[in-house]
């Protein structure tokens, strides 16, 4: 099926960088601790680049990539949503 099943969304408050929010959200979806995810996020997307894209308020745009079998979207608000193929 081409549909995505919504798994989890982590709002990104000021204290969490988008890269941190991504690993928290995927870990939540997988029900493991963030350090049990493999590979490390840096092998899939550059965490510094991801964070710098969102280091000022954005009104539009989304960054989407595959990580640990999920489709991860970082939204303009800095929120992260994690979906798996349904």
């Amino acid at each position, binding site marked *: 099926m081409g549909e995505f099943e919504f798994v989890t969304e982590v709002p990104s408050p000021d204290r969490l960088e988008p890269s941190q929010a991504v*690993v928290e959200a995927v870990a939540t979806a997988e029900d493991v601790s*963030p*350090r049990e995810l493999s590979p*490390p*996020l*840096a092998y899939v997307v550059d965490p*510094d680049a991801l964070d710098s894209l969102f280091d000022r308020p954005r009104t539009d745009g989304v960054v989407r990539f595959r990580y640990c079998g999920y489709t991860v979207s970082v939204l303009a608000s800095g929120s992260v949503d994690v979906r798996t193929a349904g």
Partner: protein
Amino acid sequence: MDTESARPEMDEAEFLERLTETLSDPERRSILRVLLDRSAARPLPVERLATKLVARDRDAAPGTVTDEQADSRRTMLYHCHLPKLHRAAVIDWDRTGERVSLADRPRVRDALSALLPDSESHRSATDRKWGSSSS
């Protein structure tokens, strides 16, 4: 697991490019300073590294750092900073054994000794101006 052999050889130009990219981040500079200042040759457990980094930020003794504080620091060590330092060939990282050490190459130690400030904290220049002492 990441091993030395899994890393392709780099020429000098590529080494310098990756080194400067990796040094552009204050957390990575702190990691390298901690590793450079160690006299022990054996690899440092990542848990200890995280504790030292939290302590450095606060000019506090490592013994005052809680497990919870060190634990949250370890997450981005694992997901961001250690992979980048490893890819830049400045550290050896045993991902499964969770240990790190400075790469055993003369040019790594020499380059870092020349480039890294002796001490640096994450506090802003404003904080320093207002008189917190820095060891």
